[in-house]
């Protein structure tokens, strides 16, 4: 149990997907302008991450054990398929939610967080439970970073930012500062 908690906390804080592992940065830049959008994207991401984790565990266990060299291809195809299926289900089940998430869902296919999760989970040999904990933690970490960045950017919109600093450059400096702040979590729950 404590192992699962550690994996979750580690993916969320210690090795935050976005701020320490640099996964999902395109989305981080693109949809961190407004808090509401950031939250939705985070939720959608987390959902796909968990599904992917389950699928990857299944693939590793039953399909890829004999052919580890097909991992990359198998994972990317499965992820693309999963996103398509999720999209169709949401479209059927809740058209409103679909409209809100519409453009984010296909974006997730090319979100390296998802493939990154698949690869790391495989490399570390996580069990089913550990994989889900990892996916949840990673998703929560992504969402946290997204929401923090979005709220900061909404605030910075009201600041007298010098002309040359308006744009992506400052976002990276803020991300660097956030990353510095997250360094405080290093070694959390793992030290003797």
């Amino acid at each position, binding site marked *: 149990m404590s192992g699962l908690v*550690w994996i979750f906390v580690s993916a969320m804080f*210690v*090795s935050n997907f976005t701020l320490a592992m640099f996964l999902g940065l*395109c*989305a981080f*830049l*693109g*949809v961190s302008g407004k808090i509401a959008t950031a939250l939705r994207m985070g939720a959608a991401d987390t959902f796909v991450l968990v599904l992917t984790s389950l699928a990857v565990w299944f693939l590793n266990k039953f399909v890829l054990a004999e052919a580890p*060299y*097909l991992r990359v*291809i198998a994972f990317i195809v499965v992820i693309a398929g999963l996103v*398509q299926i999720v999209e169709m289900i949401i479209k059927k089940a809740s058209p409103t939610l679909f409209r809100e998430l519409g*453009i*984010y869902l*296909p*974006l997730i*296919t*090319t979100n390296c967080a998802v493939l990154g999760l698949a690869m790391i989970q495989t490399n570390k040999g996580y069990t089913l439970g550990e994989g889900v904990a990892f996916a949840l933690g990673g998703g929560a970490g992504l969402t946290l970073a997204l929401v923090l960045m979005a709220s900061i950017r909404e605030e910075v919109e009201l600041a007298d930012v010098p002309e040359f600093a308006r744009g*992506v450059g400052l976002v990276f400096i803020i991300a660097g500062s956030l990353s510095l702040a997250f360094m405080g979590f*290093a*070694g959390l729950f*793992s*030290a*003797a």
Partner: protein
Amino acid sequence: MSNDPASAATQAMPAAPAAADVPAWKLLAILGGGGAVAGMIIVSAYQWSKPTIDENKRVRLDAAVREVLKGPERCDSLWLVGDALTPTLPAGADAATTDRVFIGFRKDGTRAGFAIVAADFGFADEVKLIFGFDAEAGKVLGFKVLGSKETPGLGDGIEKNEAFVKEFDGVATPIAGVKKGSSRGAPDHEVDTITGATISSKTVIRIINGAVEKWQPKLRAYRGEGAR
């Protein structure tokens, strides 16, 4: 300038399959054919690279074993089957999932010691190391980090700080980590931790102590080649 991946993605969004002019069987055939070609390329690349990769891995492990056993004449693997160690992997057991240690022999045929791979969480991520161990005397012969992501310039001293690494040569178990100069009165059990990287230092000690606790009875019970 496309700072908006959302719009890029909408453009890149695959068209719904239902609206196909091309019949579905043709799409599947193309994809299937492409997949087959891709598979063939990958498999042949795999066939070409596998021996080299395996060889690389073996050479690296072998070098590490020799290093921590301080240059034995030859080394062997010992597999843990049930609760006992055996030099040969029994038929049907999977080499990848069976626990093993290495044993080294000196020129005169006596045991140089055992080499054990162990891992645990350190400051940043998992620390994986191999250490040489004299099971009879209960002494560590030396250790080498196989993989870690400890802080560069600080925690990575467990790999790079020679003084620290050297201290493990011949230290008695269980090891105690102490601050430099503050001996607790059992010098042959003590290792000075790296200033500012106490946690990383203690991680190494914890891993070794843990592995010793797990393996020592089994190693002592091993009556194979070179036993007195």
